[in-house]
């Protein structure tokens, strides 16, 4: 997966192979999450039918804070890339680990939220709201977890004495992925939590 694992440094379009591949993958992911949100919207009219409705369960202040955390993780990510570009590997590494940390915080928030909901009785099988909610947020959470693993792995490859991403994903590609995960959450938060 290294950007140098090609035998021709051919870039007829002027865009690096890895960056192009990541954008293509992300455009697929955009459709993926759009469909996820559509399935949620498809059943939205029936969510108050069950014994547990969104209005009762959602803790908007809490989720807003965790959304804000994820939003700020985009900042830390872009800072990491920024310092990488100016070859300040030490700072780049710090910011990438900061991003991973914020990502872990977000996931912890999700897990806390999930346990609260399950204890109140909302499970995948308890109602159509339960199924749809866990489906949408669960897949997003999975993407965040994968992102955190990627961040930690890549972060451990950067540094003043390291190979500095000779292998694996470039910081740029990783940043693109992470931002995508963030903007998807922006949409999910609005559609699932904020809009009645």
């Amino acid at each position, binding site marked *: 997966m*290294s950007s140098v694992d090609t035998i*021709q440094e051919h870039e007829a379009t002027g865009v690096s192979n890895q960056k192009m591949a990541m954008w293509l993958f992300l455009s697929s992911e955009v459709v*993926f999450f759009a469909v996820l949100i559509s399935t949620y919207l498809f059943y939205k009219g029936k969510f108050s039918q069950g014994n547990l409705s969104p209005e009762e369960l959602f803790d908007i202040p809490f989720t807003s804070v965790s959304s804000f955390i994820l939003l700020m993780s985009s900042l830390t990510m872009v800072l990491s890339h920024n310092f990488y570009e100016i070859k300040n590997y030490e700072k780049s590494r710090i910011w990438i680990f900061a991003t991973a940390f914020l990502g872990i915080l977000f996931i912890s928030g999700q897990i806390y939220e999930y346990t609260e909901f399950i204890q109140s009785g909302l499970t995948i099988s308890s109602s159509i709201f339960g199924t749809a909610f866990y489906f949408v947020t669960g897949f997003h959470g999975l993407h965040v977890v994968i992102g955190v693993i990627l961040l930690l792995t890549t972060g451990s490859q950067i540094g003043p004495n390291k190979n500095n991403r000779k292998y694996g994903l470039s910081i740029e590609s990783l940043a693109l992925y992470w931002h995508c995960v963030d903007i998807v959450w922006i949409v999910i938060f609005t559609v699932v939590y904020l809009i009645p």
Partner: protein
Amino acid sequence: MKTKSKTIYKRPTQKSKFVNLLTTVDHKKIGIMYLYTGFTFFLVGGLEALLIRLHLAQAESTLLSAAEYNSLFTVHGFTMVFLFFMAVNSGFGNYLIPIMIGARDVAFPRMNALSYWIYFFGALFIHSTLFIGTTAPPVGGYLSEESNLFSNAVAGGWFLYQPNAGIQFSPGTATDIGVIGIIFLGVASLISAINLTVTTFNFRAKGLTFMKLPVYVWMTQVVSFLLIFSLPFITIALFTVVFDRQFGGNFYNVAMGGDPILWQHLFWLFGHPEVYILILPVFGIMSEIIPVFSRKPIFGYATLVFAGFAIGFIGFGVWAHHMFSSSIQPLAQAGFGAATMIIAIPTGIKIFNWIATMWFGKRNLNVAMLFSIAFLINFVIGGVSGVLHAVVPSVWQQTDTYFVIGHFHYVLVGGGLFGIFAGIYYWFPHVFGKKLNETIGKVHFWILFLGLHLTFLPQHWLGLQGMVRRTWWYDEGMNIEFWNLISSIGAVTILLGVLVFIFNWIFSKRKGEAAEFDPWDGRTLEWSTPLPPPEYNFYDIPKVKTRDDFWHRKYAVDEENRSVSKGKHDEIKKYTLATTLMDNSHIHLPSNSLFPFITGFGLPFLGWSLIFRGTFMSFVLLSIGILSLLVGIFGWILEPEHE
């Protein structure tokens, strides 16, 4: 090229053929692996179809039990669509795209290998439904307990309509295996689509601008875009089913507010682009073969390309024509009906372009060309019955009858399979340096042609008479025995044709007429290499000046627009063959790697561990799967670039 890398381990070299097979990243070898594996599944799927037809040859037949029959037509569908057709398309695409654009390999060679291994292990995983899948009599069902090979496999049709394929009406593990297997295959296709797109955009030889690309490359590119944008639909659709079946989800549980039509929307939003994904590469193959054997450039290059894009784009807007008899609004039905009529137009444009290419050309009716001409005939027949499906009230009668089966087998078998055989006869010399035998090939062609029409033409009027599809039993008094018998005789004929082909393959690999360079007087870049091509494809990366650049190296155009040989054939041939003897140590190719294989290997274990949850076995399977994935991925990342 020395790399300053922490070499914890070296990359594998080609010690033995077997190691080479497991570790290859060469697009040509991977393409051939796809073709062999895909063809094997063609035989498996064909056997399944043959059993179905043998059963249906008589009224009130008890050759197969109901459970076996239900599984057979389902597995036949999965096998043919996903394990044969898509694999063979991948095979052609992987082999041809880099060579056609003047590259040495694809953009991400190890990812390419990964696509293959995910396909391979995914295919094995899906077929495990035959051996370890379980079904049980569904709620209020009719099936008795039985357990032989086919009766416990995934059943209910490859569309997996909900809630019929849900946990209540299809209990057991067989369906889950099918569902999860397709998710794996989707990942493989997505990786491949991204890989080929980056390759086509970035790896083109100098001077090869987009409008000089062979039409085959364009068609494959449209397919890649279709895959990138349609795979999310099926992935999510399948995950909703996994949620419902495995975790008690309520997506399709009507009592809790679920709505089965959501499945239909999601499935067909993938399913319809999927049929274009299947056929567009074959359109590309036709666009390569017909000009060569008419000794004329393709007629209307630009319109062919844009028609391809139009088909791809409009293809996203016609999905509900599979749902006309489901509960969608009349306005929606009208809209989708109109869109379906519109999509016939770009397809028709292509057909006219191919015919115009042949018109006034110097045609060479060898086997590849015979298959291509038959493609045109068959596809038009299939297309006509298809556009009839744009008329909504007509569909209300035809849907779920044999009329639909007749339609799609004409386009997929008469069109797709014939096109694939054309491609095989055309590019066999390229891969193996020998031609397939023409005489045996003609026997193969005519038997297959006869078989196709015998089998599928009667199905049209069977359908109009009301014979329902996917039904195990038909009574004696229904008056449909005769044409069913003819159709079944046709199926046996197809089998004969395929056997002749296999014989031709084996025979020609040993004693075929040698073809060391440009046997067909080709037009496109792949024919400018020695045959079979060396691993690095081109000794010198070509510099491209025009469309059909290779042709223009051989031929000039005179005042009357005719091709005049430049008299350089022998010179070009001699030089090209001589390059195989020259020193190629300056050419660096990606090294082999075992990690794609290891990564793919873990996937079935993950699937099985999900299905057999709650047992100790599941935990063991999960560990093997995760371990395999982790070793595969981290090994891959840490591998030195190439040696």
